């Protein structure tokens, strides 16, 4: 039986959740016990608010529009949603958010996504194809380079496919681990970089020596071959490859409630 989630996406037929739900749930779990999270709109915002609803109610959400400690009762539709300003502990200017709060090293976890990612967690959200004659012009950097540079850790949410996982980025908008170990230090980036990548297939973490992203867990119903097939390079796999727990009833119920708030 095929189920359809509350977001209208087709389910995987196992228990009323689809792969995006699993990504969001996995991302929310990664926030367990965290204090301060820098959030973008879309899956990251949903995941962070799911964490607040499920297990880390005091998680401080910061959006780059300047809202610190936003506690939205419905999912925001943009990073400048009035609901964020209304529920925040304080709203500060954009210069202050970037200089004092982000660059100041005060944010524990940042979420990022992108159109392309390479094996070192570098991200492209600028352009597909040649910069001067692009196939697709994407929105660009926004806050991503500094989120990746200054948050103590970064979690990347990205679907795993030959479109998104690429050998060579068309443009490196945002640095993960550069060309490998030592590059972040060389570039003067202070945070630890993308310590976790959550895809629709599973989880990847950087190799301790080389920083190359390594598949460390698969989501329920995903076979290793699926992940290998979805990756254009020879994917590194952890010897103790794990299995993500499926979403719990509580997680799913909270997710459904959250998504139901995303009216127009």
């Amino acid at each position, binding site marked *: 039986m095929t189920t359809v989630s509350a977001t209208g996406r087709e389910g995987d037929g196992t228990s009323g959740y689809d792969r995006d739900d699993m990504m969001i749930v996995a991302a929310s779990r990664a926030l367990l016990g965290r204090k301060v999270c820098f959030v973008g709109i879309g899956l990251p915002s949903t995941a962070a608010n799911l964490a607040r609803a499920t297990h880390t109610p005091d998680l401080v959400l910061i959006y780059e529009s300047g809202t610190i400690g936003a506690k939205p009762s419905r999912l925001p539709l*943009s990073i400048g949603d009035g609901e964020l300003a209304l529920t925040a502990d304080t709203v500060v200017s954009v210069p202050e958010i970037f*200089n004092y709060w982000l660059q100041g090293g005060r944010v524990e976890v940042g979420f990022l996504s992108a159109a392309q990612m390479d094996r070192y967690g570098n991200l492209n959200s600028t352009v597909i194809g040649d910069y001067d004659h692009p196939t697709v012009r994407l929105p660009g950097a926004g806050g991503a380079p500094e989120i990746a540079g200054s948050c103590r850790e970064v979690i990347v949410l990205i679907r795993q496919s030959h479109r998104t996982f690429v050998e060579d980025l068309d443009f490196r908008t945002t640095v993960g681990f550069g060309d490998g170990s030592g590059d972040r230090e060389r570039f003067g980036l202070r945070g630890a970089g993308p310590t976790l990548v959550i895809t629709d297939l599973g989880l990847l973490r950087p190799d301790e020596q080389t920083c190359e992203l390594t598949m460390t867990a698969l989501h329920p119903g995903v076979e290793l071959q699926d992940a290998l097939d979805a990756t254009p390079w020879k994917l590194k796999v952890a010897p103790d490859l794990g299995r993500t727990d499926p979403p719990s009833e509580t997680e799913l119920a909270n997710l459904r409630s959250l998504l139901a708030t995303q009216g127009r």
Partner: protein
Amino acid sequence: MAEIESLANAVAAVVHEGDCVAIEGFTHLIPVAAGHEIIRQGRKGLTLVRLTPDIVFDQMIGMGCASKLVFGWGGNPGVGSLHRLRDAVENGWPNPIELEEHSHAGLTNRFVAAASGLPFGVLRGYFGTSLMGRNESIKQLNCPFTGETLAAVPALHPDVTIIHAQQADRHGNVLMWGITGVNKEAALAASRVLVTVEEIVNKLTLVPGGVVLPNWVVDYVAVAPRGTYPSYTTGYSDRDNDAYVRWDAISRERDTFLTWIDEHVMSPTTERSS
């Protein structure tokens, strides 16, 4: 000292052919009415500046107002691409457009440096990215104390900055609140400042999070009620999220775009009825 003028007169007075024009507003307080007036007045060759160019920039670019865009993130928030921007970049329609792109932090610090009377701003960032090679306005410098290498960005002094605020008083003092983004810095960085407001009040009453621009740093105030539509103005209007979704379809094709502009911008009476 600020003069209170009609939007048409104020735009005519401050925006000249070929100017560098910053139109700020970070997802909130976006001066859409002012952008439409620039389209109506047929200004060309502008360098448009904004951290987050969204659909009003898409409209100005599609109508050929801009020859250059200085920006951080250009998209339809929560919806997708800006199709008019893409058409200009990918196909040179209606004219080619030069891009100068920054991170938000980089462009923000260009405004901060200008507002502070400094020739440059300093930040941790850009190293290791392709932005650094593509953008000649990013340089590096060394800390004279630690020797660390940091990025430097040049002060950005727009010829004009246009922002929207909730209120001005009869003397042209301006009050805005809610998410105010980089509005203050962009205004203080510019040679000329135009503020569109929801209304003129007898006396400004400070509110939590309120930001004041005294009238001696503002050149023109123009009343533009609901002047941020389909963006929003805290205390006055809500964001029309559907309009952002509709824009995606309207803007995909050149003819549907031109028809929409004709109906909604060129005929000012129907301007805010979409």
